[in-house]
């Protein structure tokens, strides 16, 4: 018995150890943000003097602030539109019978899997022809290509789980199709919509490739700015880490507040609903 308790204690200790080791790189980023540059260039990661210098320079850097603003705009608009369009489509797929339904659903699933690099060339040419390069709106559109299919698959099980009786009762009461969607289904799948919003926000927020190819200076997003702190000659690790830490805030929020939904969010379209 004593042996067993000892073993349990050891395993709990091991669990903590795993988490500490795993989070070490994140500790490195966060602490680098609060270091002076000279301290970053000494190898011991634990000896440093606390400083807000990097945050000061990042938060007064026009280029970075502008890109942060762009990131917010792009992520918010793209994910809001995608949640709306995705919810409507998911509703149609789960609640209506129509021809080609399975085909449509599977095409949305496969389009979620298409590698971004394969779309980057045609998207670049399309937006160039429309004279929309370095334009925030073209990023909004480009991000729809991964957000909408993802959201449809994320929401399918949420819509499917609502019992038929709900809509039948509403129909008997003479509820119109559009009102049925807005006043009956939307409130019922609200948790799913929140997860969809948060996940598509964070996918857009983290996105790098399209931003790299489709933007230059005006519409540049924050991940590009973070990389730009690498500089041409010497990396500015302090500012890079401060900017990076600011970019991590949504990730912190999502992991600490949405635990329950994370699996659904991560595997949308991969696991039986």
């Amino acid at each position, binding site marked *: 018995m004593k042996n067993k308790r000892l073993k349990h204690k050891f*395993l709990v200790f091991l669990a903590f150890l795993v988490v500490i080791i795993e989070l*070490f790189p994140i500790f490195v980023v966060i602490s680098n943000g609060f270091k002076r540059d000279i301290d970053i260039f000494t190898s011991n990661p634990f000896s440093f003097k606390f400083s807000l210098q990097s945050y000061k320079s990042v938060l007064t850097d026009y280029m970075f602030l502008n890109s942060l603003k762009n990131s917010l705009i792009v992520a918010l608009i793209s994910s809001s539109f995608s949640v709306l369009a995705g919810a*409507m489509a998911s509703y149609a797929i789960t609640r209506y019978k129509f021809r080609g339904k399975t085909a449509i659903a599977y095409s949305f699933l496969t389009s979620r899997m298409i590698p971004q690099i394969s779309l980057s060339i045609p998207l670049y040419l399309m937006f160039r022809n429309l004279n929309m390069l370095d334009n925030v709106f073209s990023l909004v559109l480009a991000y729809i290509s991964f957000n909408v299919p993802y959201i449809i698959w994320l929401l399918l099980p949420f819509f499917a789980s609502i019992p038929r009786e709900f809509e039948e009762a509403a129909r008997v009461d003479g509820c119109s199709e559009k009102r049925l969607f807005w006043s009956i289904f939307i409130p019922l799948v609200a948790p799913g919509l929140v997860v969809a919003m948060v996940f598509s926000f964070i996918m857009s927020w983290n996105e790098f490739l399209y931003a790299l190819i489709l933007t230059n200076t005006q519409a540049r997003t924050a991940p590009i700015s973070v990389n730009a702190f690498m500089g041409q000659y010497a990396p500015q690790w302090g500012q890079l880490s401060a900017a990076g830490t600011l970019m991590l805030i949504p990730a912190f929020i999502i*992991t600490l507040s949405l635990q329950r939904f994370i699996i659904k969010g991560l595997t949308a379209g991969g696991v039986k609903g």
Partner: protein
Amino acid sequence: MLLSSKNKKKRGNFPLFFLAPALISVTAVLVFPIAYALGLSFFEWNLMNEANRVFIFFKNYVSVFNDPQFWKSFLLQIGFIFIAIPIELIIGFFVSILMNRKFKGAGVLRSLLLLPVFILPVLSGLTWSFMLQPEYGTINYILSLLGFKQIAWLAYPGTAYTAVILQDIWRMWPFMFIILYAGISGMPKEFEEAATIDGAGFWQRVFYIIIPYLKPTIITAILLRTIDALRIFSEVYVMTGGGPGNSTLLLSLYINKQAFEYFNIGYASAMSIILIVVTLILTIILVRGNIEIDGDKA
């Protein structure tokens, strides 16, 4: 009866209204671009010299299959998948067993483990390249404490490739963990209890109970990660840019290089289409094993 048939007729027309926004937007930014890329792939087309556009039909594909760098990138990609994903799976598997016990703070630990999954890939890549710097990098510091020599990881082909894989393992094993944990924590307790009473040891329980129970979950997780690993770009791009000496030039990076450094967009499009086809094959395997549209049941 009358009511329901009337309803049916009406409902037959209706989905278009609900499907339209998704169908139109996805067609515009996804279906059309894929068709466009397919079209491009039949042309010799250089962005620097656009007047000289020549329709060459399948010749780009022939050149791709004769391009040693394409095969090298392909092998690097396969190697990446075959090294990184099994390691992620093994770590995720054992940690999910480890975390499947009750203790104070277990919930917080589990959610903290997920942070790397949601970190900016770019920031993850940059942080790893910081930690791997010679002289001031954290990992080199730890190595020197342990009495090893410092290594300029990103300067040599073999170590750079290792570094890129390490970065991916660090960021994605928690993904495996959380999916497998969901499976393990839902496993009926009787299974394990019965096995323990029968005197099964740890490894016996792993091989005869836990793995068979989790098999579908494991397969899904591997497929999702493989599809994901086929498109890896930004982490590697910021860590090594594909170097040194093309040693980390994975497929996405090679396509990007051909398209936006050499401006061979016809050629790059042919590779894009090949990548799409590989992805589709994997997706079909995933779909066939796993997926049903739930709404049909009702």
